[in-house]
């Protein structure tokens, strides 16, 4: 498996697995916010605000995975090493 295939595979698997946890957590946040709003419709303003803030904090974990994937694809720190190895092999 060469360098570029490994990079692309890592990017795909990394982002896919990194979105599972925040997805489940976000669903639980919105679910309990909806249940609270249905039990007590008067508090729905405060619940809505807290739900948005809480969801953004949880979603940031998926964003960290996205940032790592973007670094792998576009700002890869091992690019020069890999390019030199490939030139060496081509000779």
């Amino acid at each position, binding site marked *: 498996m060469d360098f570029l295939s490994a990079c692309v595979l890592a990017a795909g698997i990394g982002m896919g697995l990194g979105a599972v946890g925040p997805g489940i957590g976000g669903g639980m946040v919105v679910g309990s916010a909806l249940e609270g709003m249905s039990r007590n419709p008067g508090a729905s303003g405060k619940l809505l605000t807290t739900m*948005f*803030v809480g*969801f*953004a*904090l949880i979603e*940031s974990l998926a*964003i*960290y995975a*996205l*940032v790592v994937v*973007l670094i792998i694809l*576009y700002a890869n720190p091992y690019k020069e090493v890999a390019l030199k190895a490939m030139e060496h092999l081509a000779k």
Partner: protein
Amino acid sequence: MVHPFLFLQYLRGILIPLLFPNAMNLGGEALENAQKAVDTITYSWLVMAFLIILSLLTIKGLKRMPGRFQNFMELLFGTIETMVTETMGKHGKAFLPLIATLFLFILISNLIGLLPGFFPPTANINTTLALAVIVVVLTHLVGIKCHGFSYIKHFLGPVWWLAWMIFIIEVISHISRVLSLSLRLFGNIGGHEVVIMVVFMLVPFLVPLVMTVLGLLIAVIQSVVFMYLSMIYIQGAAEEAH
């Protein structure tokens, strides 16, 4: 993957020879990085100019019976002041200029990214890192000012025989505050830019509209979350230790 056309790209010709004089000769990737940096700088100036002109227009015609524009600005600042005093208490009013500036700068920067021909300055990690470092350094300064030297008790925990471990954990937690604040904002807005470009490449017909609506929601929510987190961090440094 770069923006095809930006309105202020003509300023690149003036600023790149000024700030990155080697980039013109090296070409290729160095030129692309220099262009991205100069785009961030020029669009930050645009957002700053917009906010300054907005405030000058608000101050100029202050009346006792407010017209529409003054009413809107009063509503905006009243909401921000309510949120600040709710989270930070009475002495939180001293931080109202900083929190309101953070909120408005990040909100306008994020919203600008939704228009074609504009580049959001928060899509560059340097901008978000600068904002996060300002907030975290401010929390330390507030802690030292409010508590003096006994601010170190915040880092030592409730019992003395766990102090060494809790100190390491608190230092790591403070460093991760900088990283999380900056990466959250950069990832949301920069990632949204990447997604919009990919979607335009794949299906230019109606799907970019859906992504732009999502981008509008993300822009507003991320600015509110940054503001809330800054208020909570500053409040955490100003209150009593455990």
